[in-house]
């Protein structure tokens, strides 16, 4: 299922990475933040919404390692962030879609306003398709269910596909095998 997911997600310009352990994934993320020039100045922050992945990690330590990495989500910080990080609840293999119960506004702020959205996902949360998802979610319990398939896009000017309009222009999906127990 992962392979199908990867193919479909990449076909819509998402970037997909898979790691066996949380430690490896974390190393990748910290590297990535540095490479992208995350810094403690507006427009260069990275904003990480609270999620199971962070459980037990020393957030102050992480923030110290990469200045500009923040964990307290506000609308102002989200608007000033280059990168937003959040953890997804499910993924749909046949369309390359990630899905989240985004009832908490913080989860939406980090995935709508920044230029780059880095989405975490436990490998075992992969589902085949939309009908499979419907057996897992209940809209009566999740006020805002968000499905994301690739970065923001438009073709409104002369039908030319252009990535990154109002939402993120890059969607980086980090799939972690070991995350199963944490999600």
């Amino acid at each position, binding site marked *: 299922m992962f392979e199908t997911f990867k193919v*479909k997600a990449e076909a*819509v310009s998402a970037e997909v990475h898979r790691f066996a352990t949380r430690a490896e994934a974390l190393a990748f993320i910290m590297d990535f933040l540095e490479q992208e020039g995350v810094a403690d100045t507006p427009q260069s922050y990275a904003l990480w919404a609270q999620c199971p992945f962070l459980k037990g990690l020393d957030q102050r330590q992480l923030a110290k390692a990469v200045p500009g990495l923040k964990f307290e989500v*506000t*609308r102002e910080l989200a*608007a000033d962030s280059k990168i937003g990080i959040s953890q997804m609840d499910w993924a749909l293999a*046949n*369309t*390359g*879609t990630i899905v989240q119960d985004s*009832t*908490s*506004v913080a989860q*939406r*702020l980090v995935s*709508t*306003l920044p230029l780059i959205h880095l989405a975490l996902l436990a490998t075992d949360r992969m589902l085949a398709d*939309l*009908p499979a998802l*419907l057996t897992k979610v209940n*809209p*009566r319990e*999740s*006020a*805002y*269910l*968000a*499905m*994301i*398939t*690739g*970065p*923001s*896009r*438009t*073709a*409104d*000017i*002369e*039908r*030319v596909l*252009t990535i*990154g*309009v*109002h*939402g*993120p222009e890059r969607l980086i999906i980090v799939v972690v095998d070991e995350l199963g127990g944490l999600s």
Partner: protein
Amino acid sequence: MAISKAFRERIEKAVHSPTLTGALGRFSEAYRISRAQAYEGIDFEALRSRIAEIKASAASQFEVLAERFTEQAESKGAKVFRTSSPEAVKEYILKLARENGVRSVVKSKSMASEELHLNPYLERAGIAVRETDLGEWIIQLAGQRPSHMVLPAIHMTKEEVADLFSKEIHERLSTNIPRLVKVARHELRGKFLEAEMGISGANIAVAETGSIVLVTNEGNGRLVTTLPKIHVAIVGLEKLVASFADIVPILTALPRSATAQLLTSYVSIITGPTPTTDGTMKELHIILMDNRRTAMAQDPKFKQALQCIRCASCLNVCPVFRLVGGHVFGQVYTGGIGTILTAWFEELKKSEEIQGLCIQCGNCKGVCPGKIDIPELILEIRRRLVKEQGQPLLEKAMYAVVNNRRLFHSLLRTASAAQAPFAREGFIRHLPMFLSKLTDFRSLPAIAATPFRDRMKDIAQPKTGEKVVFFAGCLIDFAYPTMGEAVVKILNQAGIEVVFPETQTCCGAPARYSGAYEVAGQSALANIHALLETKADYVISACPTCTVALKYEFINTFEGLGQTQGLPEARELSAKVVDCSSLVKRLVEGGRLAFKAAEQLETFTYHDSCHLKRTLNVFEEPRELLKETGYDLVEMFEADICCGMGGSYSLKLPEISAPILERKLKNIKETGASLVAMDCPGCAMQIKGGFDKEGSAVTVKHTVELLAERLE
């Protein structure tokens, strides 16, 4: 239903705008291919049957579903406002805005709000409204209306967009599209953050759970529903479905049909309010708007139109839409489905001119994920307009003549003599005075000196006991009698007697397609009588339009008129009707017909006639027969797209017929084949006339003519 000068001018302007026709043309060509890819591995027929079922069932119980939806959404804290009046929707929103001190509104795309003309209303009240969908924003800056439901600014060039944006931000911008998109991101970001109210539409509203589903690509939908403290969703009643599971087929079809995506970038399912960024709860107002949808649901014919999921694929495959674009259609909804929605949400009269744009090719019917018979509903509009306003005098006079067979046929014979000064080599290339437009873009066929009905008398028939009755139709009878002779030759060769009752007359299609059902009904009765009287085993025709009339439309016309007289006979006739290529194919397969030993003949290309391909579902038979006789097939691009003839359409709207034909001729020529075959004398008339006019050497033949030449 006369066509006004102003309307003709709008058409002329659109057709001669290279920007518009270029953009739409390229898009429609690409769409056909990408849509097919998006649907790979999916049983489209099963999918759309399911959607039609879900939506039809919802439309039959709007009241129940609206109540259920209200209950469910309100139990989750949303406020639901139901109204039948567009005015009440606007007043509700304005009152809400005033009570909450709203000065700035951001909107994501909502066709329902277009229907209300909401933006100018709020702006007059001093509230700033920003469209945030890129296309909608462009249109708003340009002071225009969307020309397409999914791609509102498809008629504009990057140069025009660059000019608009330059003015808006007071900086000269180049035409670099990614840069222009960034400008929109930057400019609108501030508006999202400052707005106190977000207005959206909804693609689906689920009664079972009180949820609304938003399908978007740019991310503006997520911002509109997340940042402002108030969210207003304007939802047409037709968006209701009964259960949560119903969203699956709709979400499977909508992105594929709309933009050839497996899924759009964002799908948001909202059930009740969520916390806002300051920790308070958002105010969620859902407006369920009727605006004649309930009335539509009660109409036995038009209730079907509520199965629409607003994908706009009917626009994307329409040979007329890609020439004229959306603005010719009017203010809000455009294209085929738009014509129907305009007739209802505005008024029947508003659709008077635009309904005439439909050439009845049936392309839209084949791709509609809601399984709506759009061409049939447009005919129904025509019928009701004629009922309400009567037929224009000239048309009325024309049908009076057609309905009097003796008069009609003797007029045709007189015309054959009168045309002498204009006819050369079987063509009329120029006509004087007010008729000159008819020969502007294609030569017309000269009326044959001896019609088929007279020639038939001289062809001795085998008496084998197996009998076929041949329905010639006006074009074969009076313009292309050799096509009729070819049919007779082929059937005789198989040992079949062909009979031709002289009392057969026009099949009634022109009248029916003009909404004159009574006239069509009278022709139907005369023909049914003439054909059944022969006690033949089969009824065959070499004209797909006639074939469809005999097989389906006599019945439909009677049913439409609520007439039982002739109905059983129409059904009896229908069972006997077969198109020419299908019958010949059967005879060949049964070993009753053979062609000369195969030799390498020239290369040909095949043009699919609308009625044969889409109504009769025949397209392999003629190709296989011609290949069997030794011709080499090379397919043309868009072989099954209309040639622009459409019966009397080409006479009523030559402005549109001509460029459609031009495209067809180009596609034929690009194959390099010197021969093009087709199964329809109407298409042959259009295409032959076009090639004659431009002096091309491509031979145009009816399949039966080519087959008759190759009989053993």
